[in-house]
């Protein structure tokens, strides 16, 4: 009997350290966040009053929140489409195993292992309107400088490009993995039938890569929704609030606005969005 209980308990004992860490650092803060979102309070005075769903009701009328949510959606759509297209193109171009393509792969993957803060600083150094390298170059060529980070549209474009640059390497590797699973016989047969490279891409590569593409789309979407550090360093959400996304709005509400409970309600909304996307991803992974 004791032997049987021991055998039943063993796997849980092995899991225990991980569960403990996960519980303390992930589950507990999540539960706290959810509870806080139903209260009014601040850092200094703690939780002061239970307000039910008042914080959530307020979100529907909060222009700063709705604005940052809308900007996040546009940002995610742009970043994800560019990431999928560019990383797929890179994967097709660099799937061969020559030295040149291996070096190129490393080059494109490098931004992935850089800290987002470093990426932000580097891009800021290049694109700063008054102190940036690119504008200095333009001036030396007799061209007028471009307001990269002080004009709303230019700043949004730079933020999207910096994010895409920092992400494509990772998804390129996933696409290369996907491409390698496509049997070469299919291409050989297509060639025999006289199919052009373009036809091979649309008729073979793309359909057979569909599961990988879906996986990349969902992963990139989740990551894009969580974008924070690069933008914080690059534009700090500016000019004005033109590049302020959801995560930064949550951060500002909590710390500059000293309103952690209202910020918690915003976090719960973001959590719900990410939860749906994660469930979709799990479903896709299972199906493939």
């Amino acid at each position, binding site marked *: 009997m004791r032997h049987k209980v021991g055998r039943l308990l063993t796997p849980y004992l092995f899991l225990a350290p991980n569960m403990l860490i996960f519980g303390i650092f992930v589950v507990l803060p999540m539960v706290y966040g959810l509870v806080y979102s139903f209260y009014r309070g601040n850092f200094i005075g703690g939780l002061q009053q239970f307000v039910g769903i008042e914080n959530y009701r307020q979100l529907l009328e909060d222009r700063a929140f709705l604005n940052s949510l809308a900007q996040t959606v546009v940002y995610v759509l742009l970043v994800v489409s560019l990431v999928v297209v560019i990383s797929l193109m890179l994967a097709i171009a660099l799937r061969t195993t020559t030295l040149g393509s291996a070096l190129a792969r490393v080059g494109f993957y490098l931004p992935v292992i850089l800290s987002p803060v470093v990426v932000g600083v580097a891009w800021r150094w290049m694109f700063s309107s008054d102190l940036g390298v690119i504008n200095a170059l333009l001036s030396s060529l007799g061209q007028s400088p471009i307001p990269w*980070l002080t004009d709303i549209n230019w700043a949004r474009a730079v933020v999207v490009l910096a994010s895409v640059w920092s992400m494509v390497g990772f998804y390129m590797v996933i696409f290369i993995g996907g491409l390698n699973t496509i049997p070469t016989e299919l291409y050989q047969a297509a060639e025999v039938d006289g199919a052009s490279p373009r036809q091979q891409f649309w008729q073979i590569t793309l359909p057979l890569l569909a599961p990988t593409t879906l996986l990349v789309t969902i992963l990139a979407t989740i990551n894009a929704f969580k974008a924070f550090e690069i933008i914080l360093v690059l534009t700090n959400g500016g*000019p*004005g*609030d033109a590049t302020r996304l959801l995560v930064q709005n949550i951060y500002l509400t909590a710390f500059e606005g000293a309103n952690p409970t209202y910020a918690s309600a915003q976090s719960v909304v973001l959590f719900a969005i990410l939860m749906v996307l994660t469930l979709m991803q799990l479903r896709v992974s299972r199906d493939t």
Partner: protein
Amino acid sequence: MRKAWLAALFVALAGAAFAQRTLQVVWFTESPTEQAIFDRYVKMYEAANPGTKVEVTYVPFQQLTQKLQLMVAGNTPPDVARVVTANIAEFDPVALDLAAYVDPSSFLNQFLPSQIPYIYRKPRIIGAPLDVTANGIFYNKDCFDEAGIRVPTNSLQVWTWEQWREAMDRVRNNSRCRFALSYDFTTHRFSTLLYAAGGRFIDPSGKRFAIDSPEGLRALSFFADLFKDGFIPKGQWLSNDDPSTLFRSGQSAMYMSGNWNVAQFSQVRNFNWGVMPLPRDKIRSTVPGGKFVMGFKGSKNPNEAAKFILWLTSKEINLPFSKDNMVLSARKDAKGMKYGQFDDAIAVFLSDLSVTPSYVGQDWSNPVMARLNTFIRSEIVKVLLGQQSPKQALETIQAEGDKQLRLLR
């Protein structure tokens, strides 16, 4: 066995006798120079108090409030922290009451009256003033000489705003400085113009906001035009570029900031700099502020914290400490203190402070200003981006200010 017990007992007792208290201090820094000076004073304190070890956590100014908020929320407040006029009110509810350690009237009487509203919440004393600050304009002497412009050096011949603008135009076009003016990205620094125009944030009753006025409009329109006409580089208010860097690198002819930069600029070697009296519009005025040290309720060593605060703000320590940092001590007995080669620069700040109306300090010691700081700044940014007119911005700030004042009551 008995010997072993005795030895263990001896070790335990010796350990207790030599046990050190660790005083946790959170200190924001503006520059490495300032950090090195504070380290030196910490060592002096430790030498004078052998039972105490002072552990200092240095944080950049931008992260100070967040750091303290999180420490307080996590029930692990530091023993001592250095705070400023803009955030001392926020930590009032959790402040260590120094009144329990001193005779309140003689303690308060040591400091300049302008700093008392920030620390005295009758009957509690929530902190002690370290130094007084004043906003002001640093200028690149070489660029002004090159452009052939004579900068007023004393309070008798202060520029008007129109003369100031004209000087910006001339210095930008006739010297190596690419930009006329760098301007700190804060509501506090913008308010220098508001007060010079004769305006104010809160009316004398303290119950209504007063920024939506002809004076407010004059200040905000003048400020927005400085950006529109390219005198202030847009990146400083629109994309977080550091204004200080542009001035220190010799690319900006002037820098609107404050006296706390003197120590940092004493290291500048690539050009000569000075401080000019703030240009006048309707009146002459600067914006006074200050730095304070405070303790926290529930910290590990409240008694030692109070002792450290009183030590740091005592005459014997605070005067040399202020001199080393080239800041204006908040103590009354610091009057007439000399700073060597920077006496002229400090004299300009003192002259601006001496003509500043008392309501300027009252505005900024109102807790509502700490809450509205970021809001006001973002409304100004919308004007700079052309998303709203100065008048619309003032109406929005006025409405929010009135709302916050009502909530406070």
